[in-house]
């Protein structure tokens, strides 16, 4: 729906490497995607897939020995790669905001909520303290915090985990950023609280036109939230497309395997009423230090052939639906069996 609009963020062939003992490790390998205004992009992968490092790279938060070694990051047409640290700082918290799994990464435990929020506003724009306070209260109200005036005077430890994460989200929203990067923000929360936050985030982004990148390991979270999905494995995006395309007709064998491994989707008891075993992916994710040549998923893949020892090409299966695979599943194969 936002295809004709100028994307907020264009990431092209982004590569982040870590120099280390025994050679460099490529944590993010030629990753490309766009996010449109008001769009929610789900970045899905297991631990070590490079999903969080992709987020940190876009935020300019890759510390040595890590380094962005290639590609471009364009926010509203402006190239961010190679920006001096001072300009990065000015961008973060203003045009790009972030939300972490642990809200205490954002919140300072010894400062009251209002102090922190007012500071965030005034770090980026010249407004009076009262005006900043007003903005802070509005932001808290928008993320569904009851009695925001009272919460403003609280310290972080006086709030529950879900409430803290809401405050962190409110802080991210304060300066109406163009882009929010959220790294597993609901993973530590209960189902009911997670549902509330997912619901509110969707509405907020749609209304304000903020682009949102939601980094998670959980395909089910993405199913109810994201417009588009990128699936990452061993530093590469192996499949991307609209949420319906990726989840309903997955083309990459890894995506298919992830969906099959998710118990929620696979409750089909056999005749005796016993659940069937999950169709698991054999083996485990390779260490980034010793990736196999070609497709990194090859050793765990049932469809792998000698061809897969080459780097797989990006295959466009449908409009906007791309998989990096020599043997993608056809739409019929990708359908749930």
């Amino acid at each position: 729906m936002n295809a004709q609009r100028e994307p907020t963020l264009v990431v092209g062939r982004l590569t982040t490497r870590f120099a280390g003992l025994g050679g460099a490790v490529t944590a993010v390998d030629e990753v490309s995607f766009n996010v449109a205004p008001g769009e929610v992009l789900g970045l899905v992968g297991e631990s070590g897939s490079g999903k969080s490092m992709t987020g940190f790279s876009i935020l300019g938060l890759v510390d040595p020995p890590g380094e962005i070694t290639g590609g471009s990051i364009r926010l509203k047409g402006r190239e961010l790669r190679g920006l001096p640290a001072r300009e990065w700082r000015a961008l973060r918290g203003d045009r790009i905001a972030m939300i972490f799994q642990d809200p205490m990464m954002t919140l300072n435990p010894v400062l009251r909520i209002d102090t922190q929020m007012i500071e965030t506003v005034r770090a980026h724009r010249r407004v009076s303290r009262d005006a900043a306070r007003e903005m802070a209260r509005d932001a808290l109200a928008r993320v569904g915090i009851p009695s925001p005036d009272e919460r403003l005077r609280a310290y972080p430890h006086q709030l529950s985990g879900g409430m803290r994460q809401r405050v962190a989200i409110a802080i991210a929203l304060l300066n109406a950023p163009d882009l929010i990067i959220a790294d597993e923000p609901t993973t530590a929360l209960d189902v009911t609280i997670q549902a509330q936050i997912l619901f509110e985030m969707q509405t907020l982004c749609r209304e304000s036109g903020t682009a949102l990148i939601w980094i998670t390991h959980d395909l089910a979270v993405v199913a109810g939230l994201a417009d588009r999905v990128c699936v990452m494995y061993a530093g590469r995006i192996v499949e991307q497309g609209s949420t319906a395309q990726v989840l309903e007709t997955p083309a990459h064998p890894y995506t298919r395997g992830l969906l099959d491994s998710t118990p929620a989707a696979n409750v089909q008891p056999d005749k005796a009423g016993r659940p069937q075993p999950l169709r698991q992916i054999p083996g485990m994710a390779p260490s980034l230090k010793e990736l196999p040549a070609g497709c990194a998923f090859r050793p765990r893949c049932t469809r792998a052939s000698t061809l897969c020892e080459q780097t797989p090409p990006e295959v466009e299966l449908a409009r906007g639906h791309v998989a990096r695979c020599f043997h993608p599943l056809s739409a019929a194969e990708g359908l749930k069996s």
Partner: protein
Amino acid sequence: MSETSPPPAASPADSEVERPLRRLARMYAESRVALFGLALLLVIVLAALLAPWLAPQNPYDLMQLDMLDGRLPPGSASGDGRLTYLLGTDEQGRDMLSAILYGLRISVGVGVVATLMALAIGMALGLAAGYFGGRFDAVLMRIADIQLSFPSILVAMILLALFGQGIDKIVIALVAAQWAYYARTTRSAALVEGRKEYIEAARLLGLSTPRILFRHLLPNCLPPLIVVAALQVAAAIALEATLSFLGLGLPVTEPSLGLLIANGFQYLYSGRYWISVFPGVALLLLILAINLVADQLRDVLNPRLQSQ
């Protein structure tokens, strides 16, 4: 059927992973200063151990001393020409180098023995307090608090005043002054480790309490204890030297470094610096070496660095 079959096991590629001790050794060797400290410590300890064979004379065999050689400056030859006093002599004509080597022996010995005893006592009490908690824990830790609120030298002086002098007495005084450090350190480590799931698993597996305490809990509490013990050896040696310097420590028949310093103290103003200064330098080097080693141990045993 293929779905339930187990996946392949760990790749053989990582089979040549380092053993924990070798990894610690490699991490320790990353600091040159720490290696220097270790080398210095080894030299001092070896010199102390081998004093009877290394020392030019036995400084406490009165037959070997010549009063006429008293208070000779460093580098002087003895009256009979058989010896060169590299570090000079004291007022009784005793070779300072020999006296220092013998003194180190006593200082290191007392420090190590007192530390090991305090460690054993403090560790056992702290382990029990941390694992069982309750009233025992509360009482023990209050005693430790009270004791730690007095300077350890005061505690030691009071005890020595009660017991009198002697090498056994000073060891007791040092143990009494230091057990609380170990008890506290062990207790806090045991509190953290004791809550971990592997301890619960051991309980469920029906293992006996002593087995859980000593085979499961204690080995995982050791890293901070080793660091504390290393630092406390230095503190024990310094404390013993202080007490001996004040004349409260060891009797004159067993002169440690502190006593040697005290003996030479009265000559400092008359320019005969060597009687006091060289034992002082030996003490300084010993404590410096121990501290360098302990600092690096603390870094190496830091669990946050260890987890990689």
